[in-house]
């Protein structure tokens, strides 16, 4: 029904544009392009200064880490992975929403995605960039991290160990990053061409000219473009599921109680979508306000995303309950200990119950329409959800590792200032990339939004189809 109401809303808002004061094609182009074309606002520089300073902290921390060793973090004897892998999984999870919105919703013809997909995809790429830092630097000898790639070289004279989930992870994440980047870029081409055509300075003409790969908007271009976009969407779809499935294998394939469980793949994917959507909501609420694109990114978009958050949050809650059930039902004392003692009542109980409150309880408020359509409320909840999802990864990693089989080697993980500042720094990187993105690239997919606008019956086919389908009628112009 969301689909229907949205389609109607879009139709109502966009269709009468030729006669009334509603946005025309040109208006859309103007609204999006102007963000990048006006003189750089002082606030942009301020934002950039802040975010890049934070990125600078990240750089300093990484330099210190590489120069000194993993010992600058809190990782230790039993807890070999701490905030490094926690943050890696956290960022990868955030990176999930983008491709999900772009690919899966595209294939399912969820038209409401169009206003937010560009933004979500950018978020995916930037989150994956942040995530990618961790596997590279968390190894003891980062200068040898490339040994994880199966490239012929004279030092090793042998292959990687293809049994290792960590190696699968390398493939999964690098493939995901590559395909996401391609998908994003392909989607950008027509809009980049728009920017090129509107460019008034030599620099912009050249830059966008190169970036738009000679796009002229001919029918052949459009045909190839749509095909390519469809293929990439098809390629990305399994990746959305696979990347977090494989990330979850890092844990599930091990023999550690609390990690060794078959529920992890669906649980991780649901969690990733959960956190990804929450992050999109957080960013969208801010961006649509700053860039005055409330008419393109409507409350319906936000509400739909909140519904997804509610659904995946509930799935995640169910998964937590299932873990406890399995631990009890299996009769495995080590497994029971992890859940009933380590997590629920152990030294990390505070982390566990923070996770439960943030991830299971907080999204339940979205059952109420009033709350899920309230901007301040959803903003707060979306942040809480991401805190909760960070705790989920931390709980999985730290509580399972800190107390495993032999009580003699039980320990505890405590982060150092380097852990904290490195994580803080990744937000700097994430936001810096966003600041650049909003300044130099179309933050909303102009061509796709135009596709939603009914200038005439033919052009409005998407909307008609949707409305018609919901009314059980044959749409007008369905021959297309």
């Amino acid at each position, binding site marked *: 029904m969301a689909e229907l109401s949205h389609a109607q809303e879009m139709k109502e808002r966009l269709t009468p544009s030729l006669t009334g004061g509603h946005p025309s094609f040109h208006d859309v182009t103007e609204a999006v392009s102007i963000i990048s074309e006006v003189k750089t606002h002082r606030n942009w520089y301020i934002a950039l200064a802040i975010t890049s300073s934070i990125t600078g902290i990240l750089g300093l921390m990484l330099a210190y880490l590489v120069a000194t060793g*993993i010992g600058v973090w809190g990782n230790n004897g039993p807890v070999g992975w701490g905030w490094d892998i926690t943050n890696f999984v956290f960022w990868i999870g955030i990176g999930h929403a983008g491709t999900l919105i772009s690919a899966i919703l595209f294939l399912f013809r969820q038209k409401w995605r169009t206003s937010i997909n560009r933004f979500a995809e950018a978020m995916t790429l930037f989150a994956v960039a942040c995530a990618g830092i961790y596997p590279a630097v968390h190894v003891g000898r*980062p200068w040898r991290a490339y040994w994880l790639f199966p490239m012929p070289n004279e030092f090793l004279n042998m292959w990687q160990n293809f049994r290792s989930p960590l190696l699968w992870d390398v493939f999964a994440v690098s493939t995901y990053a590559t395909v996401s980047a391609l998908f994003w870029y392909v989607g950008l081409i027509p809009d980049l061409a728009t920017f090129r055509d509107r460019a008034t300075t030599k620099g912009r003409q050249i830059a966008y000219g190169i970036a738009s790969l000679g796009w002229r908007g001919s029918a052949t271009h459009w045909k190839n473009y749509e095909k390519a976009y469809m293929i990439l969407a098809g390629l990305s779809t399994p990746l959305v599921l696979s990347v977090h499935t494989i990330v979850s294998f890092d844990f599930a394939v091990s023999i550690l109680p609390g990690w060794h469980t078959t529920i992890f793949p669906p649980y991780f994917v649901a969690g990733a979508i959960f956190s990804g959507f929450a992050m999109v909501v957080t960013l969208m609420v801010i961006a649509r306000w700053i860039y005055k694109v409330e008419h393109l990114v409507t409350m319906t978009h936000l509400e739909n995303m909140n519904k997804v958050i509610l659904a995946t949050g509930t799935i995640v809650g169910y998964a937590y309950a299932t873990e406890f059930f399995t631990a009890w039902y299996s009769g495995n004392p080590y497994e029971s200990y992890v859940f009933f003692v380590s997590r629920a009542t152990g030294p990390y109980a505070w982390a566990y119950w923070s996770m439960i409150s943030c991830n299971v309880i907080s999204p339940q408020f979205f059952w109420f329409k009033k709350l899920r359509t309230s901007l301040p409320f959803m903003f707060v909840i979306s942040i809480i959800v991401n805190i909760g999802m960070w705790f989920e990864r931390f709980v999985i990693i730290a509580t399972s590792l800190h107390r495993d089989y032999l009580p003699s080697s039980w320990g505890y993980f405590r982060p150092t200032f380097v852990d904290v500042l490195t994580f803080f720094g990744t937000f700097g990187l994430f936001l810096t990339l966003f600041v650049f993105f909003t300044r130099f690239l179309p933050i909303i997919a102009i061509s796709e939004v135009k596709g939603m606008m009914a200038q005439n019956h033919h052009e409005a086919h998407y909307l008609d189809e949707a409305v018609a389908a919901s009314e059980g009628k044959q749409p007008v112009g369905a021959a297309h």
Partner: protein
Amino acid sequence: MIQIQGIGNQTGKKFWRSLEELSNSPKFQNWVAREFPEGATDVLDGKSRRNFLQLMAASMGLAGLTSCRRPVEKILPYAKSVEGVVMGNSLHFATAMPLNGRAYGLVVESFDGRPIKIEGNTNHPGSRGAATSLAQASVLNLYDPDRSKEVLEGGKASTWEAFTKAAATLPADGEGVRVLSTFVNSPTLAGLRSQLAAKMPKAKWIEYEALSDDSLLEGSQIALGDSLRPHYDFKKASVVVALDSDFLHLDNRSLAWVKDFSSRRKPAHHAEAPAAHAAAAEHKPAEGEHAAPAAPAAEHPAADAGMNRLYAVESNFSLTGIMADNRLRIKPSDVQNFVFDLARELGAIAGLKVLGQQDKWIKSLAKDLQANKGKAIVLAGPRQPAVVHAVVALINQTLGNAGETVLYTKEDRRPVSALKELVGELNSSAVKALVVLGGNPVYDAPADLAFGDAMKKAGNSIHLGAEVNETAVAAKWHLPESHYLEAWGDVANLDGTVSLVQPLIEPLFGTKSAVEVAGFLATGKWAKGFDLVKAQSKLDDAAWRQALHDGVVAGTGPALVKNGADKTRVEAAVNAAPKSSGKLEISFVPSASFWDGRFTNNAWLHEAPDPVTKIVWDNVALMSPKTAKELQVEVIPDNVGMYAQKINIEVGGQKVEAPVYVLPGHADGAVTLTVGYGRKAIGRVGRDIGYNAYAVRTSAAMGFNTAANVTKAAGTYYMVTTQEHHTQEGRPIVLEASLAKFEKEPHFAKHEEEHVKLFSLFDEHDYSQGNQWGMTVDLNSCIGCNACLIACQSENNIPVVGKEQVGKGREMHWIRLDRYFTGSEEDPQAVYQPMACQQCENAPCESVCPVAATVHSPEGLNDMAYNRCVGTRYCANNCPYKVRRFNYLNFHKDLEEITKMVHNPDVSVRMRGVMEKCNYCVQRIQEAKIKAKAEGRATGAPGPYKVGEVLTACQQTCPADAITFGNINDPESRVAQQKKDHRNYSLLHELNVKPRTTYLAKLRNPNPELA
């Protein structure tokens, strides 16, 4: 030295920079000398470039000094190859380490002229192939950059020549000359002492060590009429009663005790045990369990005699108490009453019993002892007063143990009263020259003597020591002492066996040995240690060589004496004995790591966890939970360490503040203090670590003090341990049963292993061919003494990480000794489980390593390829035993050049970012393999090795013979035999990881009447 050559001496074209240089006038020479004086840089600054170059030069130079390892006192280059020396192969030399009047017979591995690894000497009766953690770690002291390196006069650098000149002023007749040495157990030193006495008749020689067995000797003087030292034959003992004696560890005087004791902890319940064994135990093993190849019957000869029973009566929870089958925790002063009552129960002495509450215990114990007459040992620790030892001697005689399991040799007493006398003389300024020959009395003399103040009153004071310690600082002259691995000497063990102390290297610095300095005092001339020792030994060349080779001088050994105990004298002493008080008592135990404090600059020993508390880099005041409650102190755990509240201990105006540790199993009403810490003048490693318990130890109460005032102090102290969790959480980790249950149900350990059939996702390797290495660890033998841990550290170049890093859980030991408490908090038992890589056949670490840095060898080893490791730490996460160690930082970075000399060149030194772990001493396996190949021995199953040819470092040194390693494919090997033992089980077998190391379950043999 900068050689200034006159310009005229040069060949070739002449260049000059000034007219002065051209003329090369004396004035110019003088200027040059001032400008570039020799040794201008402060050599004490360890980081200076000059020092670095010195050390570099020393290491390079020493690499060539191979000849000094041979029993020839000359340094020669190899003009011709020396027989037996193959470059790159190590050599082994027998020597001995003197300590506290006894000797550790050792075999030291030397590589390219560097001693690198210390093992026990199998020929030596006090070692029998084993070595303690102290002896093994002593090699690190040799390369200690903070060692005393030069003669000091009033704290300033001087020379031996200056000292020689100054020493000439010593009074010729010895008037006012006092020599204070550690216990003299070197025949050469004893000979020189006589020479000195002849030359300086008025001089006196006093021996003092902080930890002594004088109360034992005094006790035998009462009971046996002579100063006699008891020796024990634990092989023959079926019942052992330890009275405040940690004879397995801190009060151990011979590793033979541990060897023999543990030989009686190996009940032979093999499935294929010879019928005699089964019959002896009145138990038939379940039939058809294993195919039964003929087992070597002589595997554990003592097993026929059955498992012994150990009673421990003590206040501290010692390793002996942990091993005990029945343990009674009472205050130190109550031990006396316990012994009296036991003697009364046994009818050894007359009188009424005083301890009502222990009556049942005493009766059952007495019954057991009487049932094992002549096959029991009753022994008391050195902290107990003489009267206890007197009664013990009487009990041993009454039970017929004397002459059977308890033997005596004569030994001179070295009472603390001699030191007291000396202090008196010092205070009356009667001492013109005090020569402190080794030792550190300023630090460890009884507090009431105030030795440090008294020493200032000596006319002249000379201190010989291996480090610039508290006494060195107080002395006018300090002379650097040679390490025993770099100077000739000899040493007699407590039983009289003499060993030659054979150096393996020329003195690294300008040091001299105690023998050399004593020789100088006695003769006025400097003689070489070698000549002095050789002359004293009176051995011909062949016998000398033989003695060097064997590590013991043939024909020396115990001269047993048989004295009868005098009941009346003992009873008189008992009646005169002071009654015990109701006050809180403090007792003083040696440090498990540093003995009396002389090894306190040894980082390996600092980081070896205390066997009981697992605390590293600190000493604590141990007390029971009840006593802690009474004192209102507690230890606040902090997940990564703990904050201990502190107590003030005051004895006769002397005070010390110590952090508490609440030790379950400690006796109520007593506090145990560990000596050896709180050093003020020492190298960088040991300075100001822990508290100094000597500060409250008085000459009247060297063992324990009943007049101490203990109160809560303000503040807390942060401490770290290597084990934060002390129970097994009900998990089947250390399997344990009583002997009775084991005899009824010999397969109890196997029953734990029953589980559904497991399978692996991956194809499993075929392990049926060739050598297949495996290990068993007998939990019933392991005493938890850390010898294996230090052996491993030394063999495998394991770095020390320091207190802070241990607190973060980053200790690097490849083998650790897990200690779990069982039973109640007040009166628990404890068990040890040595834990190193289990070399799983289905290794979970291997499958998860993305770069295949840890892979399986065809011989069943879980190999680590350090060069390939990138350090993802996934393997460590997936290791169910958590035995993998990660180099979180570059732990080898701050080592000074000289310390690097201790490294074993057969094992790579790991850089940061690399994972490491036990690999069954793969370098030793390879060495044996190369040797087997070189000798052309047949290859193939079961392998070209002789049984027992390949020993892991931990196995080789284990005093309890708890670790067995070998080829499990060879049915003759001991390890293959042990794997068939009923007690054999795999830890975490249900994970299907198939560990190659298996454990033999722990048994206890408690007195059923005390159950």
